[in-house]
């Protein structure tokens, strides 16, 4: 009976009279347990057993009992089939509990596996009562000697601890391990049954982990509340280490890839280079010394070059010399008009591309009649005549340096047939219309002609309207400059292939863009004239 009082006195003394005295572990643990149970245990009185030979029950002072003393409480307990016993109540003042006091009693006689009735009376009146089994009220100390070691494997730690030193309960324990990275608040908990060691897996490499362990009876024979967490233990996982096999595989694969790429590069290097960095064609070959000696000054080059004479009036054509075309037109063509050496343009016989436009067509109408003559003779004959004519008249045919260079562009003028300028060009354009070659004349005269001006934009029209250069009575030859772009037209009867010849780069400046488009063969579809287009480029 006095045992409880002595304990209480000691505790109070330690708390109040000797605050500097370091509290023993047992008292601290007791205090911790009381505080813990105050939070988690709902029933009153709150009882817990620390070992196999004790039971402590306590309760908190209520508002109604404020200022009461321990003497005003009566604590009785009764085991089944036995008489009741009394327990001495003592007061306990915890510093954290504020001003409220605690009263507790430690039972003298302990019997397990038998129901126990507990009654608390305040001033003779029943205050609390409870029926319990002591073996279900365990509140153990947290596991001691928690040690953490590395296992030698990546992301693993081994945790071991000592079980509570209770004789009959060694195999009836349940543990919980909590672990979290040092600075993180997210922790994981793992429950361990009966064993006192655990290997944590799947941890981050090279991280410091904090670990706690707690214990509780497993609930089959003995039961209780979870103990408080043990003091945290810190341990870092081993830093990440590359598996040597993985390193070897990576090296092998990279070597293989390197060799493969090297092989590919060597075998297809040139091809790839050509694709990725295509050569920009330069006309250097045709103009010897233009870039090297004269620094790109064409005028200067002309003055110095032997072939400058041939170029007057300057008419540059692209370095690419297309093969002579065979004119295979089946349509009847008028014989080409006789070459008029006088007309600087007439011998050229160039046909001009013309955009659709009724006005132009109207103009054409005048010409068409004379142009009609073109269409009658067969192509071959006409072409031969043209060639002969060019050869006979080299000078006026300065533009025909094309021919000298064995280029022959012939365009067949279909539009010319319609005297009325109707859009009956379609009739002329049969599928049989074969080749159309465009002769381009040299000089660029005024560009005031609207039709010509619009020529530039007619690239997308796809409609062919050709104008005979031979019959242009009212106006000068359309300003076909030396910088024309010529288009060789090849008609296979199914499709028309246009291969535009770009003019010299020199003459690109300032004259407008060069349009090169792929024209579809609209003869079949629309029965329209297809004409090559003149593209102005400066000459």
């Amino acid at each position, binding site marked *: 009976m006095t045992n409880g009082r002595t304990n209480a006195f000691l505790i109070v003394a330690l708390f109040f009279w000797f605050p500097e005295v370091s509290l023993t572990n047992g008292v601290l643990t007791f205090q911790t347990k009381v505080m813990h149970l105050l939070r988690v245990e709902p029933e009153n009185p709150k009882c817990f057993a620390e070992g*196999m*030979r004790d039971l402590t029950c306590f309760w908190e002072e209520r508002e109604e009992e404020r200022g009461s003393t321990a003497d005003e409480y009566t604590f009785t307990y009764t*085991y*089944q*089939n036995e008489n009741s016993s009394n327990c001495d109540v003592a007061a306990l003042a915890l510093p954290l509990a504020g001003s409220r006091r605690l009263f507790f009693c430690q039972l003298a*006689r*302990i*019997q*397990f*596996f*038998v129901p126990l009735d507990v009654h608390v009376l305040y001033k003779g009146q029943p205050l609390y009562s409870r029926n319990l089994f002591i*073996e279900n009220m365990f509140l153990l100390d947290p596991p001691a000697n928690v040690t953490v070691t590395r296992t030698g494997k990546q992301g693993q730690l081994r945790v071991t601890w000592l079980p509570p030193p209770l004789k*009959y309960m060694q*195999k*009836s324990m349940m543990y919980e391990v909590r672990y979290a990275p040092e600075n993180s608040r997210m922790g994981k908990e793992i429950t361990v049954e009966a064993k006192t060691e655990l290997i944590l897996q799947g941890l981050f490499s090279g991280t410091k982990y904090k670990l706690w362990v707690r214990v509780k009876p497993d609930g*089959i*024979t003995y039961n209780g509340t979870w103990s408080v967490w043990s003091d945290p233990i810190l341990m870092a996982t081993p830093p990440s280490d590359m598996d040597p096999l993985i390193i070897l595989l990576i090296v092998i694969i990279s070597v293989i890839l390197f060799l493969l790429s090297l092989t590919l590069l060597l075998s297809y290097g040139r091809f790839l280079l050509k694709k990725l960095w295509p050569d920009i064609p330069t006309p250097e070959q045709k103009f010897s010394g233009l870039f090297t000696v004269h620094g790109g000054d064409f005028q200067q080059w002309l003055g110095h070059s032997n072939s400058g004479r041939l170029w007057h009036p300057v008419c540059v054509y692209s370095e690419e010399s297309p093969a002579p075309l065979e004119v295979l037109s089946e349509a009847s063509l008028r014989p080409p008009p006789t070459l008029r050496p006088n007309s600087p343009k007439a011998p050229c016989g160039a046909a001009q591309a013309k955009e659709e436009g009724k006005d132009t067509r109207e103009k054409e109408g005048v010409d068409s009649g004379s142009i009609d003559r073109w269409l009658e003779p067969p192509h071959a004959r006409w072409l031969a005549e043209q060639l002969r004519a060019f050869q006979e008249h080299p000078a006026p045919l300065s533009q025909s340096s094309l021919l000298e260079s064995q280029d022959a562009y012939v365009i067949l003028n279909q539009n010319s047939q319609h005297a009325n300028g109707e859009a009956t060009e379609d009739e002329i354009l049969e599928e049989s219309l074969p080749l159309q070659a465009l002769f381009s004349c040299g000089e660029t005269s005024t560009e005031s002609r609207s039709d010509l001006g619009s020529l530039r934009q007619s690239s997308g029209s796809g409609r062919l309207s050709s104008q005979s250069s031979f019959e242009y009575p009212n106006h000068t030859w359309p300003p076909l400059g030396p910088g024309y772009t010529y288009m060789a037209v090849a008609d296979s009867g199914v499709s028309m292939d246009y291969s535009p010849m770009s003019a010299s780069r020199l003459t690109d400046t300032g004259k407008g863009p060069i349009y090169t488009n792929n024209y579809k063969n609209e003869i079949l579809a629309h029965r329209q004239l297809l004409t090559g287009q003149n593209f102005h480029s400066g000459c």
Partner: protein
Amino acid sequence: MSYSSGLFALLLMVLEWTRLGLPSPLRPICDLRVIDQFIMEARDAEAAMRACKEGCRLPGPFTVPLTRVNFDVWEKKDVQEQAREVQTGLWLLKEAISSLQVVGNSAAQSHIDSSLRNIASIGQVLHSLSIQEYIPPAGVLGEQETWRVSSASELFQVHVNFLRGKVRLLLANAPVCQQDAS
């Protein structure tokens, strides 16, 4: 003919030899999970009996063992005394449970059957631990370690507490198992 008789004699000798080997002690069952399983089943039976009010009748009060364990007192007893106490209690429980009359409650009946089977199994476990079988002779039973119950739920509560307490303590601290451990 002599061969066949000789072989027959040999066969008999072999059989005799194996028969002699039979009474050797069983391997000791030291794993406490066995008794834990019985305890869990007994708890289920107690819960079922608490629910069974009408159909589960006990004809007259029955003597049952005391289940209380004071460790100081218990540890003072030697193993034989503990064994006797345990076996007496098991016998009493067996008598009481088998006399239960269950009407119209098949679940309760199955619990009763399993409880009786478990009590028999515990006897075999004790036997494996070299604990001699003991049946209390009539009239020896004193009032010290027994008391009387009148309801089925009380009976099964005693059954659970007895298994959890004395029976388990005896099995956990059987000398045979302690020797193996150390």
